[in-house]
């Protein structure tokens, strides 16, 4: 089998000493980030990108991906032990995980989360391998018209499906697209929104914006809070019993599939996956009344689903070059900074990167299991570090990273400004991830849009004459209108009920 040869090749890449070491560093940092309060996975990936510039892109991506799924895992530890999700996707785990911890069953809760994540991660990796070839084949037939429509769909669904306000999501995506237009017009060479400032001619990089909106803003938000949290310290017996396994095997299987499918979808993401998984488990359970009171299925399902989703998100990212979540948008931005063009050609031009990365997922998931079960005591200690002591360090390293990218003081100021903007956005409850999607995808959308129009001699109907493109655009419109349709249906329902 051809796939096995390639996977074997991937393992030789991923197991080379440097790559293995950075995979280990990645999942380790990821877990720390997941555990520490006030440090999200987006922050960590954005802060660490500047440190990867000297590395070979394969090694860098292996480390960044390791941070991503390491943080997913670490986030569950805090959910279980202090009832605070370290990462948004772990939010469902607080419901039953913390209850289990209060009942003295923190060990099995952590254990089932680790094993569930491992199973999900492995499954997602296998599915990625299986799906990659056919998807790449389809993607290779795409022209600029299809790419334009697909990117529009990715951007539109992000705001809507995340469960927050569609309007706020789209508004922020538009803000990101606007930021992406700053600089020199790629086709005509005209200056756009530079106000004559020479530093703005190259445009606003996504990195200073991302570090500002995530890292600096997070520091500002957390600085306002006083944090004292009770930690459940007694953790023993990490291995789930046979009874626990019997109870959670269905949840793990369903969580894996739900998570993977949602992760592949544009706008899906790990948070949605864990919410859906929890609701499904509650529905199919024979004793739904135990949910929220320490049911192990309520931990196993969502934890499995969020890991499967982060694996699933790699499918559109690697095969099509389309990010389906905020984090994969940042990974896409990183790839472009390394000078690697994401998309179907990646499999032909950079097989070492693609297959090495895929193989590193297996290794990373195994490493997570190995390092997390024995190190749980250290994570418990880490939970007690007050954020006030970390704040200075996080701020300094974030600004150093921004500065070191281009040795530019201007970018430091841009980061600080976006830190303030991000802080104000949080106050107004506006999501930051769509801004990053906009700033990364905006210029790509523009390029494909103009290319498509050049091919069609300026005929706008070309986007509806290509069947796939038409489907993507209709889906995009549908995703925007969905809340409106739901509202109308609900109202009609209400009226009928009132009449009857």
């Amino acid at each position, binding site marked *: 089998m051809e796939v096995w040869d390639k996977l074997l090749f991937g393992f030789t890449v991923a197991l080379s000493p440097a790559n293995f070491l950075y995979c280990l560093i990645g999942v380790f940092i990821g877990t720390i980030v997941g555990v520490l309060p006030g440090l999200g996975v987006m922050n960590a990936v954005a802060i660490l990108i*500047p*440190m990867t*510039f*000297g590395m070979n892109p394969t090694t860098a991506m292996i480390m960044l991906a390791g941070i991503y799924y390491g943080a997913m895992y670490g986030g569950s530890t805090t959910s279980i032990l202090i009832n605070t999700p370290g990462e948004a996707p772990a939010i469902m785990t607080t419901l039953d995980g913390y209850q289990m911890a209060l009942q003295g069953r923190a060990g099995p809760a952590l254990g089932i989360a680790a094993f569930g994540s491992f199973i999900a991660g492995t499954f997602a990796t296998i599915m990625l391998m299986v799906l990659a070839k056919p998807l790449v084949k389809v993607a290779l037939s795409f022209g600029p018209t299809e790419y334009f429509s697909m990117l529009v769909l990715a951007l539109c669904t992000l705001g809507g499906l995340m469960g927050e306000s569609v309007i706020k999501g789209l508004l922020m995506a538009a803000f990101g697209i606007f930021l992406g237009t700053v600089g020199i017009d790629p086709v005509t060479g005209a200056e756009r929104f530079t106000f004559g400032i020479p530093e703005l001619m190259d445009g606003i990089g996504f990195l200073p914006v991302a570090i500002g909106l995530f890292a*600096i803003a997070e*520091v*500002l938000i957390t*600085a*306002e809070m006083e944090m004292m949290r009770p930690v459940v310290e007694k953790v023993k017996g990490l291995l789930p019993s046979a009874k626990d396994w019997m109870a959670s095997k269905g949840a793990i299987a369903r969580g894996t599939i739900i998570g993977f499918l949602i992760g592949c979808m544009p706008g899906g993401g790990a948070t949605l996956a864990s919410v859906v998984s929890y609701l499904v488990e509650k529905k199919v359970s024979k004793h739904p009344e135990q949910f929220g009171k320490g049911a192990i299925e309520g931990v196993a399902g969502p934890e499995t689903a969020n890991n499967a989703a982060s694996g699933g998100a790699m499918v559109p990212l690697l095969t099509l070059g389309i990010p389906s979540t905020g984090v994969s948008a940042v990974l896409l931005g990183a790839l472009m900074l390394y000078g690697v063009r994401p998309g179907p050609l990646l499999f032909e031009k950079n097989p070492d990167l693609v297959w090495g990365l895929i193989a590193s997922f297996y290794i990373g998931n195994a490493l997570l299991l190995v390092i997390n079960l024995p190190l749980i005591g250290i994570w418990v200690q880490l939970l007690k570090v007050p954020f*006030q*002591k970390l*704040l*200075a*360090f996080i*701020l*300094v*390293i974030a*600004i*150093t990273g921004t*500065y*070191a990218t281009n*040795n530019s*003081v201007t970018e*430091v*100021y841009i980061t*600080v400004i976006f*830190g*303030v903007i991000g*802080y104000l956005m949080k106050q107004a409850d506006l999501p930051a991830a769509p801004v990053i999607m906009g700033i990364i995808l905006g210029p790509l959308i523009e390029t494909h849009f103009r290319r498509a129009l050049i091919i069609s001699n300026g005929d706008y109907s070309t986007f509806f004459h290509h069947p796939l493109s038409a489907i993507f655009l209709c889906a995009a419109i549908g995703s925007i209108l969905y809340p409106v349709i739901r509202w109308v249906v609900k109202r009609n329902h209400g009226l009928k009920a009132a009449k009857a």
Partner: protein
Amino acid sequence: MLGRIIWIIAWSTIYGATIEPLGYLLSTGVVTFALLAYFNRRGWIFNIVLSVATPISIFILFDTLLKSPLPRGILGP
């Protein structure tokens, strides 16, 4: 609470302004200390140790290990 926000933003801006003229080590040390002095008021020894250790460790990480040179400023040759 606004005081904390202004303090962080002010020192971040000072950081940007001093990183090149003063050099990375001095500038980072001062900023780290200023932030810790405000947010971690009990623990002077901890603050001083961290204000010395932070710039040196990040400098070694970026400048030496990652080969991404940082400004030496007045300490440099």
